[in-house]
């Protein structure tokens, strides 16, 4: 029992980090029907940036978020303007899936050319310390990472719920043509939303390197998790993505303890198949029509 509770704590803390990455992914889908397969690669890119800042300039990874996130935001807006906006044909959705995949390959290639395939990890002085609460170990970095991700999620929520920009984003999600009629500048909303969506990857990526070792190829593992999370939560639903990420974090950690660590990431797929059988649209998703 002790182990299971311990695993649940770990799962919630890990799930929080995935929740942040997945919320950006699902937000981008909601606003512009684009599945950003490069989300995982951008997490790894941010992890490398944060690692480089830490090793060369001794910038704490949690502070480097302030540098990395704006950079990735700018990159995201650029990608949207150059690659995704120019897809105007009726197949724009599927094409964007492939084009972001190409982007992921490009990022993997550049990182591989610069850093080779050696695994890196950002080793801060507090990387291995832990608090003991009621007999349970809580890793300090994981708690910080969780805190950071929750803070960014709250900011994201406030941005979407309380600002004029957030209202226009939500309007675009609910009904793009009406939003356009009501004077929402759709192109600007799309570009900014894409930037925001990928900068959640950047924020989570900056701390990812503290939690796990990574190399340029790690993005496949990440994107497979993130995609199951967003499908599980229902494509386009930020709340669904957060709920699904927390749930998967816990399931993965418990499976690792109770069954075998080898099968823990496989639990994502099992839950995904079960959900598809019971509720193909995910927790909070709406049914999709054909292309």
């Amino acid at each position: 029992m002790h182990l299971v509770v311990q695993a649940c704590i770990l799962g919630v803390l890990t799930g929080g980090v995935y929740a942040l990455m997945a919320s950006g992914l699902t937000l981008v889908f909601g606003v512009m029907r684009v599945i950003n397969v490069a989300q995982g690669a951008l997490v790894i890119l941010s992890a490398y940036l944060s690692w480089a800042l830490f090793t060369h300039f001794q910038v704490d990874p949690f502070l480097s978020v302030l540098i990395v996130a704006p950079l990735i935001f700018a990159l995201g807006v650029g990608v949207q303007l150059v690659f995704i906006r120019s897809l105007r044909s009726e197949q724009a959705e599927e094409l964007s899936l492939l084009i972001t995949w190409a982007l992921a390959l490009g990022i993997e290639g550049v990182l591989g050319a610069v850093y080779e395939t050696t695994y890196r990890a950002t080793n801060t002085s507090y990387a291995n310390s832990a608090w003991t609460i009621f007999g349970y170990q809580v890793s300090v970095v994981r708690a910080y990472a969780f805190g950071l991700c929750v803070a960014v999620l709250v900011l994201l929520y406030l941005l979407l719920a309380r600002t004029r920009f957030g209202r226009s984003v939500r309007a675009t999600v609910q009904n793009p043509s009406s939003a356009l009629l009501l004077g929402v500048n759709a192109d600007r909303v799309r570009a900014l939303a894409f930037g925001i969506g990928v900068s959640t990857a950047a924020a989570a990526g900056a701390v990812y390197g503290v939690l796990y070792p990574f190399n340029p190829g790690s993005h496949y593992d990440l994107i497979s998790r993130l995609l199951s999370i967003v499908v599980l939560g229902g494509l386009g639903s930020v709340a669904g993505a957060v709920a699904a990420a927390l749930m998967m974090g816990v399931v993965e950690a418990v499976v690792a303890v109770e069954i075998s660590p080898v099968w823990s990431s496989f639990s994502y797929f099992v839950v995904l198949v079960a959900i598809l059988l019971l509720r193909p649209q995910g927790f909070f998703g709406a049914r999709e029509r054909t292309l």
Partner: protein
Amino acid sequence: MRWITPGGLLRGGGVFGLLAAFPFVERTDWIVNIGVFTLMYAGLATAWNLFSGYTGYISLGQAAFFGIGAYATGITFEHISIGSGYRPFYALPLIGLAVGLVSVPVAWVALRTRAMTFAIVTLMLLFIVQQLAFNLRSITHGSQGVAVPQPTFASNFDRPYYLAMLSVLALAMLICWYVRRSKLGLMLLGIRDDEEKARGLGVRVTGAKLIAWALSVGLTAMIGGIWGYYLFSIYPESAVDPLVMIGAVLMAFLGGKGTLWGPMIGAFVLVPAQQWALTSYGATRLYLIAYAGVFVLVLLLLPRGIVPSLADLVSRRRFRATDRPDVRPTVERVAS
């Protein structure tokens, strides 16, 4: 059969006759080797097109079945001796049939979703199968991989594989051609254009999609089987490789998905370049960057593919030539 036109027969017979003669004329090993991979990707892209091109459901998981076909060959070799030389090739139809049938329940689950969700779910399938290949050590030996005994083809080692790949490609093209002209093909295109309407008109949409899926997967598994026998060693990373998947999809897009010859043309344009880049830049990761660059260019400049764009051009020329009032026959949809 009433569909066979002299022109079509000449085209099909001519192309495949030339391809069959190629390894007997050109005997240089590395060229035939590139030929094997070109035919492999042409087959994969054509098989992908049979399901995704015709139904409009973008599947990113066919490479999973490529891997399963490869493992099926390797594991069969390990447990029962199916002979060496040409004999393993005769087991391929069985492997194709078995994998095609086994994949139907999987497709039935995946086809509960549509559009983007379907694409994601099939992509997950790729990762699931790769993970299984790593984890089911008692069957697949995990990351150690499965070794296939090396066959003893005296000279021109690559030629039998070339011919095997060519046979599967010919089979894939025949099936595509037949399906396209059959009632099934009409049903599939109906699904692509408007699934709800097709269903309303009495088309058994799920049945049609499952048949197309099983055919596509069976062909993919056979190609995987030949690939496994060609490389002797089958590893989870190389047998279930997202790059193989994206390559096949890219070629189908370049040539024109939903057309008969498009995917094959796409493969013949891209694979020689890809193999050249792989041998020159493989060690450094520049190969990936080049891949990504070509991909982006194809999608931005030629999103409909070579065959439809050319067909458009030709029909417009003819239209002008007949001296009719200058009305544009089709709407230009190429992204500017």
